[in-house]
């Protein structure tokens, strides 16, 4: 590895459970965040910031949310898209009906209303498990999207039914809507990602995270040692939907610049689920790795033939893209069902011993 862990001794339980157990890890993460905040906006162009990094970061937030629910609390959900839509539409209502409200608060409140809806649809989880639960979250997916499409109140009776996101400022910079520069939107989204990412990694190593994991590993046993399934499962649904709601609001306000239900259809739910599974269930790092991998893979597949000088009809590329995508998912599941995060862990283990593995 680039650094050694020998010689770092923990003298207290707190140190052993710290967020960064090795000082250099902490430096690395701080460095990464600083790089993302300072260097990338300077070197990135419109395409990279606006079409690749912004959506990937937003989807990482959604993947974090789903990972909390599925990876840490063990409740399979196929309704991520609907919870994202809830956040987007509620944030839109707030932003347009309360002109003066700060945009950060608007987006957080969008997440909160999504959390409330998530709790309502999480109620069946107290009686239902596994795939049965997944189907009830499909109910959320189809019902909520239908509701947002059919009730004109949600889009302020806009004639087209697809209102544009209102332009709003944060700290004096325009950060939402089509007018905002991609750099400003990128920094805004990145801020949310970093804060929510740190929050998530702190949540899952604290008391509440351990309660989630106990429920995931065996709910009856967890109940016997005094963990209340009701509060635990519903809190996971609430936190997860909050993340998804924030991601949905950002998606509408900072990426596609319109508030429309079709952006959050069932395919969105599946995409986020893929990110979580490929990245690694029950891993914060995995949510980010998965989001980058799944979002960038189609882009790569799309442009790869052109790089090596092949010209193929775009329709054919779309089909081949599906095939390669499907095959890669199966391949990754076979190679490492625990996901990219686990692969990263194994690489680290190997590098730690390198060059003398025995």
């Amino acid at each position: 590895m680039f650094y050694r862990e020998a010689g770092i001794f923990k003298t207290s339980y707190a140190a052993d459970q710290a967020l960064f157990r090795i000082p250099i890890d902490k430096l690395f993460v701080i460095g990464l965040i600083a790089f993302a905040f300072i260097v990338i906006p300077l070197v990135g162009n419109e395409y990279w910031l606006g079409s690749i990094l912004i959506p990937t970061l937003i989807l990482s937030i959604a993947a974090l949310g789903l990972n909390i629910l599925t990876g840490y609390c063990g409740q399979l959900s196929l309704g991520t898209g609907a919870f994202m839509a809830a956040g987007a539409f509620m944030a839109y209502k707030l932003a347009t009906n309360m002109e003066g409200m700060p945009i950060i608060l608007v987006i957080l409140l969008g997440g909160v209303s999504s959390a409330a809806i998530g709790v309502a649809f999480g109620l069946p989880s107290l009686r239902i498990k596994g795939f049965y639960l997944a189907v009830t979250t499909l109910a959320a997916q189809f019902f909520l999207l239908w509701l947002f499409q059919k009730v004109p109140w949600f889009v302020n009776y806009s004639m087209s039914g697809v209102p544009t996101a209102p332009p709003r400022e944060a700290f004096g910079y325009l950060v939402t809507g089509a007018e905002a520069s991609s750099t400003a939107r990128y920094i805004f989204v990145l801020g949310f990602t970093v804060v929510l990412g740190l929050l998530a990694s702190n949540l899952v190593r604290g008391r509440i995270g351990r309660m989630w994991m106990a429920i995931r590993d065996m709910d009856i046993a967890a109940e016997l040692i005094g963990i209340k399934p009701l509060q635990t499962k519903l809190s996971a649904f609430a936190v997860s939907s909050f993340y998804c709601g924030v991601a949905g609001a950002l998606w509408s306000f900072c990426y596609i610049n319109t508030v429309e239900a079709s952006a959050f259809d069932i395919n969105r739910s599946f995409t986020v689920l893929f990110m979580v599974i490929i990245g690694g269930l029950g891993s914060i790092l995995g949510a980010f790795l998965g989001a980058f991998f799944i979002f960038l893979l189609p882009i790569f597949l799309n442009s790869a033939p052109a790089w090596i000088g092949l010209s193929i009809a775009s329709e054919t590329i779309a089909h081949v893209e599906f095939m390669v995508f499907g095959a890669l998912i199966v391949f990754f599941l076979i190679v490492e069902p625990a996901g990219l995060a686990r692969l990263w862990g194994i690489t680290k283990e190997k590098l730690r011993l390198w060059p003398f593995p025995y």
Partner: protein
Amino acid sequence: MTLPFEVWFFFEVVLNGLFTGTMYSLVALGFVLIFKASGVFNFAQGIMVLFAALNFVGFIEMGLHPLLAGAITIAIMIALAYAVEGLVLRHLVNQAPIILFMSTIGIAFFLEGFGEFIWGGDVHALDVGIPDGAWFVGDMMIQQFDVSQAVIAAVLVGVLAAFFTYTRIGRALRAVADDHQAALSVGIPLNQIWVIVWAVAGMVALVAGIIWGARLGVQFSLSIIALKALPVLILGGFTSVPGAIIGGLIIGTGEKLAEIYGAPAFESLVEATTGVDSISFGGVEEWFAYVLAMIFLFFRPQGLFGDRIIERV
């Protein structure tokens, strides 16, 4: 008979729903077969319907006789079963159910791309000579198409039931469904059984695909409709073949009734209470099945005919 028109119309709606339900049942049947034998929740079943239909229609368009096309498609579905078992499932033995589930989503993506890569993404019309007239009973119209489709579905279920009850392979399948380890210990080859159920599910998918394709044209949306088979399964129970059929009928009827009677009633209710006019609540069909399944689960988590879920610490 001199019943008022509304009554006839109601009967027509119910009947229509029942026929739609048989289609859901056909897809659900494929799910149940695979779930019973291997515990895999096969998300790709919907795509298999599309894939089978695409192959079938593709061979017919090449000028082959429908029977020959059907035979080749069956051969392809069997080959697919071998491929799935050998390339995917064999390597994922003992993994968590969610991993297996994800792998079938991967298979679904692959098949979707593969099918359209070979046969193109256009809508294909399919005519296999199912009669398309209508009968009138009183004021009620019955599509002959619907009737023949229901008959085909019934025959298929009958054949499957006979296959499971009277053949050696069928008995082995039931043994595996009951208890994997016990089945292994009396010498039933699990891998071979998996290939067989995937192949059988592939053939069921072909039948569903032909019927649906003849009605709607062979196109991608077939696989989305197939997602409706999930609430059907919930209602009937994941492990029960009769459950899949009755669940399909309930969902089919329920959503048609909700669309025709529920949505207008709700619209007038909204209009009466809020004074807001002209909100259309059409499209209840899209989600009704899922919400019905969700409410149902509150009262019977294992479904109508599912095995009781017993948990031990």
